[in-house]
């Protein structure tokens, strides 16, 4: 029901989206995973209709998303900013924002009360929002996007900077939305939450999708290998050089940064060989961990960057 084709957007010299394409079906929950600057917010902003000067097409429910203003009634968007009125109460905010859509007033009131219940703000519905904690504000920010029961829900980093309780509550909302048939795209750079929440995961960087699929499908990209994470006192350059001649031979360098590197190995028997090369170059290793492949290693392999960068 959503088809994005060749979406391209640049800010001057910066190519924020590079021929980005994606399909999404009813009730699918897609986690869009990407490091800072990958283009996630740019994508959401274009779909939301607040960014102009781009190329490419977006078809939503068979119609051009940008040509038909009425389609906005079917679209719910939760921005990265806490974009609401601090001086109004949670209830008044919901009634105001919901009032922009074609929902009858009585129905709107009923849905607002129900949503406040679901995001656990019902007890403080009448307080000015400026008294709320960060987590409470995030929950309200999310609830605002759901009032008009959209068919497509877009959330930009809905769990940034909040406590665990609020995060659980928001991920619950996302899952519920998916279960009730709403298609969802949410961006994040938290691996754990896409693993538990999404039916599909897409990893993006430099404005395009590098890989997508279910969690299992993605992990298979790295293959049945073990992941070795090495911490020490070394620079990225000498580390790569040290392993140059053995790389490829059952050893793959996933990512190298100063003092931290990740490698995929076909078997743990390879590890002494690696240590030997590092020792000869006098590169000090302080810690070594062996892990099974997971989303994080897939991400490392694809983007060459750790999500915490």
């Amino acid at each position: 029901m959503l088809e994005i084709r060749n979406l391209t957007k640049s800010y001057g010299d910066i190519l924020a989206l590079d021929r980005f394409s994606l399909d999404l079906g009813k009730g699918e929950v897609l986690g869009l995973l990407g490091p800072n600057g990958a283009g996630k917010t740019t994508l959401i902003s274009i779909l939301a209709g607040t960014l102009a000067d781009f190329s490419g097409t977006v078809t939503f429910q068979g119609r051009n998303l940008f040509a038909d203003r009425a389609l906005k009634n079917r679209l719910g968007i939760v921005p990265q900013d806490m974009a609401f009125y601090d001086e109004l109460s949670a209830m008044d905010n919901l009634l105001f924002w919901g009032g922009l859509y074609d929902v009858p007033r009585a129905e709107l009131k009923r849905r607002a009360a129900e949503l406040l219940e679901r995001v656990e703000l019902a007890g403080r519905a009448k307080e000015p929002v400026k008294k709320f904690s960060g987590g409470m504000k995030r929950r309200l920010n999310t609830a605002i996007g759901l009032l008009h029961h959209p068919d497509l829900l877009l959330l930009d980093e809905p769990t940034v900077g909040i406590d665990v309780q609020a995060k659980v509550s928001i991920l619950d909302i996302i899952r519920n939305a998916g279960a009730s048939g709403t298609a969802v795209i949410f961006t994040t750079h938290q691996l754990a939450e896409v693993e538990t929440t999404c039916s599909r995961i897409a990893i993006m960087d430099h404005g395009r999708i590098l890989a997508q699929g279910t969690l299992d499908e993605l992990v298979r990209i790295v293959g049945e290998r073990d992941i070795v994470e090495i911490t020490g006192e070394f620079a990225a350059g000498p580390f790569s050089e040290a392993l140059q001649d053995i790389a490829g031979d059952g050893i793959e360098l996933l990512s190298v940064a100063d003092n931290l590197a990740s490698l995929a190995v076909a078997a743990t028997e390879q590890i002494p060989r690696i240590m030997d090369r590092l020792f000869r170059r006098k590169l000090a290793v302080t810690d070594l961990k062996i892990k099974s492949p997971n989303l994080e290693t897939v991400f490392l392999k694809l983007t060459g960057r750790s999500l915490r960068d």
Partner: protein
Amino acid sequence: MTMRRAKRILHVAGNDLRIMVGDKAFFFWTLAFPIFFIVMFGLLYKSGENAPAVAELTVVNLDEGRWGGYFVEKIKAPNLTIKTADAEPAEYSRLLVLPADFSARIEARRDQALAFKKRSGASVKAAARVETRLYQSIARVISELVLYGEGDLTKFLDGHPEFRDIVRVESRFPEKTVTVVPSGFDHSIPGTTIQFIMMMVIIYGGVTVLEDRKKGVLARMLFSPLSTADVFQAKLLGRWSLGFLQALMLIVVGKIFFGLNLGSLPLALLVIAVFALAMAALSVFIGSLCTKEDMIIGLAVLLANMFAGLGGCWWPNEIVPPAVRRVAMISPAHWAMDALHKLRFFQGGFADILPNLGVLLALSVVLAVVAGRAFKIRD
């Protein structure tokens, strides 16, 4: 425009108004503070110019003949109250003394002097009215005497009605003479209203446009079926209604506590409505250009006070030199105040304020166009 679209715009504008009115300091800035200005300028430019409807004249008639009484009859007029006294009283506003030989000198066809005294501090306008009436009366008596000719003057009052009241003397002020200087609360309330519309609309209106843009609230509105143009119109409407509400509050207070008279309430409201529209557009323009709240507040205080002073909100522009009056035309407040003064002090009607409305409307359009160009959803 579809109903749904209009409803959405009203929804946003109404919410804006509610947020601005809901501010803690709102009623201090829009009510308490302006009332202080109203009282201050109302008293400062009070003067005696609000002349009593009926002017008072005390006459001490010492005349031993009959011409004194005849002359007093001639003075009588509907807008004059004549009191008589036997001797100069301790208190009076204006006093005319007819000497003992008043009749004797007339009958002898001799010159004579009458004493007319004004108490300092009494209404200058009322005095002018009395004085004019005195000259008229003197002229009428003299003309009767001249027409009567050489006859015996002692017999004139016993007959000869054909010579009575055949000459009428009328006084008119030449056109465009400033006969009235706007003053008192009828000047200071509209003046303060215009000043505070400028100040409040630019500050509240500008700052909230800036805040909404920074917080991403404007961008979020575009997620809904609202277009940028819709949001812009809603912002204009919200700020316009803030300005109009400000005016209504001060007018109601003025009516209840200061006996405010605007000449024509509907026309005065029309002037204020168009003025508020220009300020609403200006506030969106300033809010879109500025990146800091302090800049908006500084600009608002500067512009509002400059335009208010220049535009005749504090002292009536009718008393400033013509050169200053010409410069005042750059102030939007001038066009509003001039129209309001026409309505209240110069018996002006719709036709008289049409040029003012035209200028204010043109200004609104120009400001709305530049505001529309400067208006942005995010920085």
